[in-house]
């Protein structure tokens, strides 16, 4: 196999259409006669529904249908959406109903839907659906929700504990007994939002001839949505096709199956016409899942040299009102904490807590940013306590590369022992320290301070379980035209999946990349699929493309070898032909072989060869592949205004083999931008009644071009031994340690004030408060 494309900065095959307005996002799919949906949503965080009067709405112009929970088809009524990731620790598998029946548990929960000739008319009529709500006691605050007498987030429950998770290993008690130093911290971290620029979207039609649905959705997991529809509608697997066309960003939240994706197909069948619903930004901020609200209370034991002895604590995770994706995020948080460090003993008790807020599920990083924030903040505090440099205390504790593969002592979320497969953590940190000028920074910092400028650097390391199974498949086929077609059910949301898959196949067939077509995100193209999450597609689909392409190449060679009566070793692929190497005679085009093997009467396949130039492979990795990295942030803070500017950002990143550096660097740059938002911009605010108040992009701040610097990126390649192409995931690493590195840098910049920051995000007004508190504390010390 040649390697002309693998590893090269190949420009994307996706770009031509997207740059010329020819992309096809869900709202761009136009079907004749399409009707439009508007949802009626709860204005209360918790209320009983005593009745719904939709009579007026039904009479309004253009209205075709109004549905409430009690109007749903009988097989759906009272059912909840399939819980896709069950776990025995979940106390009650509460997922949403397609429409709330008698109780609403967060602001924005759908209660009814209006279908009309236009979205305008549907929204007009939605205003006329009168819901008789009886407000119920609300629990919005995570810390308060675990109290014995807390208001229950669900009226029928006696408490708010959605799950208890305990993880750990080693003798923690002994570690603390023998410790020379113990540092402790309480670390509240805030939920953020996905906010892809394309909101959610769904279009459904029902084909009465075939008794089957076709659903277009801006989803990360077409097969997941298909499973949920099959389950709740109680229909055969063959009666639903889900297509994720171009999807305008995902970042985790589009992985979930939402009520709208169930209700819209139901309406399309009832009306016999296509129905479309496009989420608006307010709905996105109300009803699309969020992540990250956690409170960590942690204690770290160290010896006199700063070596870690043990870590223990408790974490509270705000689950919101439902558990649509089980307890994956808090579980990942709990097993990500040890990171790249030798940690002899660890014990964490996690409480997953229901509140009357929109549910939380994985968002870029999926529980890892909080865990890394907790560990890295503790290490900074320990460095302060021991009088060590922050990079030095880390260096002393990094897992030596000779110890790879390294068993951590925990079980990862894939149910497999958490074993780091490869990596060179000391080298990554050393490179980050070198490239950031870490060792000479204190001089720059002093010089800046002399000019009245507060600059600081912060460092953070992480290890990320990527490439999770159970599997993802791909089909490679040589078409009768001679072109190569790749198909996978997993959807793409901008990562450049089509390009990297095409790179792998183009190398295998020794053709130009323009000879390869890639179809993603259609359940009709492959029977089984899992979805785009957990930085898993390069490992799973990339490996499947590699293996299925190799199988088709082998078949081409076998057929040509039989035809020309030479050995397979004498056959080569070049210029879209399969031919006898180093000879003038004997060549078949891919097109000829495809036509012969595709059912041409009179052509018999060589013995043992199956029909068609096609192969499907489902790669199932033995366990997760662990990527890692070291980030250094450099910031300037204005202590008067609390404004923060990121001056430089250095990333050393190891995702195993880099298939396309242009794309991997794009993932890192974009991931860091998301992390910058989590560090000091993005705050989803709720009032005391758990009403969201940041429901526009004017209120919820996303990072813009003036805020995000160009990230300086360095690659270290430790190939994963766990898949045939040596790759690990790269989609989330940019985000994971960013808040930790930036907050560390802010704290460093404000050293003259003695400010300690144990929370994220840190918004300007909060930073000013902390500066004032620190100043007051210092004044008190001076008086004493």
């Amino acid at each position: 196999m040649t390697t002309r494309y693998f590893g090269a900065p190949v420009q994307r095959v996706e770009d031509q259409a997207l740059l010329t307005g020819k992309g096809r996002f869900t709202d761009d799919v136009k079907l004749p006669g399409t009707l439009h949906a508007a949802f009626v949503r709860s204005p209360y965080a918790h209320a009983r529904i005593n009745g719904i009067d939709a009579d007026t709405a039904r009479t309004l112009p253009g209205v075709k249908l109004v549905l409430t929970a009690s109007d749903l088809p009988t097989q759906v009524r009272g059912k909840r959406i399939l819980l896709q990731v069950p776990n025995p620790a979940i106390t009650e598998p509460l997922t949403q109903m397609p429409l709330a029946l008698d109780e609403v548990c967060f602001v924005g929960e759908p209660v009814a839907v209006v279908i009309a000739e236009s979205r305008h008319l549907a929204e007009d009529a939605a205003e006329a659906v009168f819901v008789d709500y009886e407000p119920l006691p609300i629990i919005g605050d995570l810390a308060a929700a675990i109290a014995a007498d807390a208001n229950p987030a669900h009226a029928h429950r006696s408490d708010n504990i959605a799950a208890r998770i305990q993880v750990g290993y080693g003798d923690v008690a002994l570690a603390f007994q023998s410790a020379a130093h113990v540092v402790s911290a309480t670390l509240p971290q805030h939920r953020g939002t996905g906010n892809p620029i394309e909101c959610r979207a769904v279009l459904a039609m029902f084909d009465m001839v075939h008794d089957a649905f076709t659903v277009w959705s801006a989803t990360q997991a077409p097969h997941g949505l298909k499973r949920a529809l099959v389950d709740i509608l109680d229909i055969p697997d063959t009666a639903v096709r889900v297509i994720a066309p171009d999807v305008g960003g995902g970042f985790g939240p589009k992985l979930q199956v939402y009520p709208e994706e169930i209700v819209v197909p139901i309406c399309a069948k009832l009306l016999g016409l296509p129905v479309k619903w496009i989420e608006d930004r307010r709905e996105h901020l109300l009803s699309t899942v969020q992540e990250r609200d956690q409170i960590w209370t942690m204690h770290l034991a160290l010896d006199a040299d700063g070596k870690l002895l043990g870590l223990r604590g408790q974490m509270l995770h705000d689950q919101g009102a439902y558990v649509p994706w089980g307890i994956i995020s808090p579980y990942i948080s709990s097993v990500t904490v040890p990171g790249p460090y030798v940690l002899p003993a660890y014990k964490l008790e996690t409480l997953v807590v229901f509140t009357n807020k929109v549910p939380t599920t994985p968002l870029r990083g999926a529980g890892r940013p909080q865990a890394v924030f907790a560990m890295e903040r503790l290490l900074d505090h320990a460095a302060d306590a021991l009088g060590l440099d922050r990079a030095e205390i880390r260096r002393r504790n990094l897992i030596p590369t000779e110890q790879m593969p390294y068993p951590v002592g925990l079980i990862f979320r894939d149910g497999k022992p958490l074993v780091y497969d490869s990596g060179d953590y000391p080298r990554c940190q050393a490179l980050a320290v070198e490239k950031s000028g870490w060792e000479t920074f204190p001089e720059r910092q002093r010089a800046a301070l002399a000019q009245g400028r507060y600059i600081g650097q912060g460092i953070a390391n992480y290890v990320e379980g990527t490439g999770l199974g159970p599997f993802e498949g791909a089909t490679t086929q040589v078409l009768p035209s001679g072109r190569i077609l790749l198909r996978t059910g997993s959807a793409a949301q901008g990562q450049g999946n089509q390009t990297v898959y095409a790179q792998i196949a183009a190398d295998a067939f020794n053709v130009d990349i323009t000879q390869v077509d890639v179809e993603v995100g259609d359940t009709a193209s492959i029977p089984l699929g899992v979805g785009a999450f957990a930085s898993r597609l390069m490992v799973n689909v990339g490996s499947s493309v590699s293996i299925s392409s190799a199988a088709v190449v082998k078949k081409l060679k076998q057929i040509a070898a039989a035809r020309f009566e030479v050995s397979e070793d004498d056959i080569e692929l070049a210029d879209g032909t399969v031919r006898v190497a180093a000879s003038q005679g004997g060549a078949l085009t891919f097109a000829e072989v495809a036509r012969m093997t595709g059912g041409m009467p009179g052509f018999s396949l060589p013995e043992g060869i199956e029909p068609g130039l096609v192969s499907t492979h489902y790669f199932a990795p033995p366990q997760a592949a662990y990527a890692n990295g070291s980030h250094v942030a450099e910031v300037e803070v204005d202590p008067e205004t609390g404004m923060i500017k990121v001056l430089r950002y250095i990333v050393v990143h190891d995702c195993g083999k880099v298939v396309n550096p242009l794309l991997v660097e794009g993932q890192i740059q974009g991931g860091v931008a998301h992390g910058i938002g989590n560090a000091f911009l993005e705050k989803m605010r709720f009032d005391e009644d758990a009403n969201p108040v940041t429901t526009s992009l004017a209120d919820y701040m996303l990072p813009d071009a003036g805020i995000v610097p160009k990230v300086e990126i360095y690659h270290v390649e430790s190939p994963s031994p766990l898949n045939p192409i040596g790759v690990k995931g790269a989609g989330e690493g940019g985000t994971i340690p960013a808040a930790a590195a930036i907050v560390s840098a802010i704290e460093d910049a404000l050293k003259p004030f003695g400010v300690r920051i144990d929370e994220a995000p840190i918004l300007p007004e909060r930073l000013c408060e902390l500066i004032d508190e620190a100043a007051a504390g210092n004044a008190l010390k001076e008086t004493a």
Partner: protein
Amino acid sequence: MHHPITLTVNGRAVTAEVEPRVHLADFLRHQLNLTGTHLGCEHGVCGACTILVDGDAVRSCLMLAVQADGTDIVTIEGLQESDGTLNALQTAFRKHHALQCGFCTPGFLATLTQILRDRPEIEEDELRGELSGNLCRCTGYSGIVDAALEVARGLRQGGTAP
């Protein structure tokens, strides 16, 4: 109640009847089927729907279709060279990986088309400030900035505006 409007869209004369409450982006997307213009927030913050109205970058979600009567509009569908190839800015976007999901891209292209035409001398800091009215959740902006600066350099050296 519908109002008649007449305008030019990507060089073609268009006459249409529009409802007063239909905004310009919906008119382009749903009445003219020019779905390359995307809606990200419909409240004027994200900039995804930015198009060129009489040469100026304008948020088409904040303008009603009736207000576009008599205007000359260019959308992403009208940015390519006359032979259908990508223009300099589009080419630079591809080269610098300035787009991932591509949903915000039409707005960035429109905003930058005006900036590069009016101020090819623009430097990075100022460019970043100008671009703060367009949000991208995927790229972290550096590819977009690099692409625009490369085109600006080309213009200063005598190239043609995109």
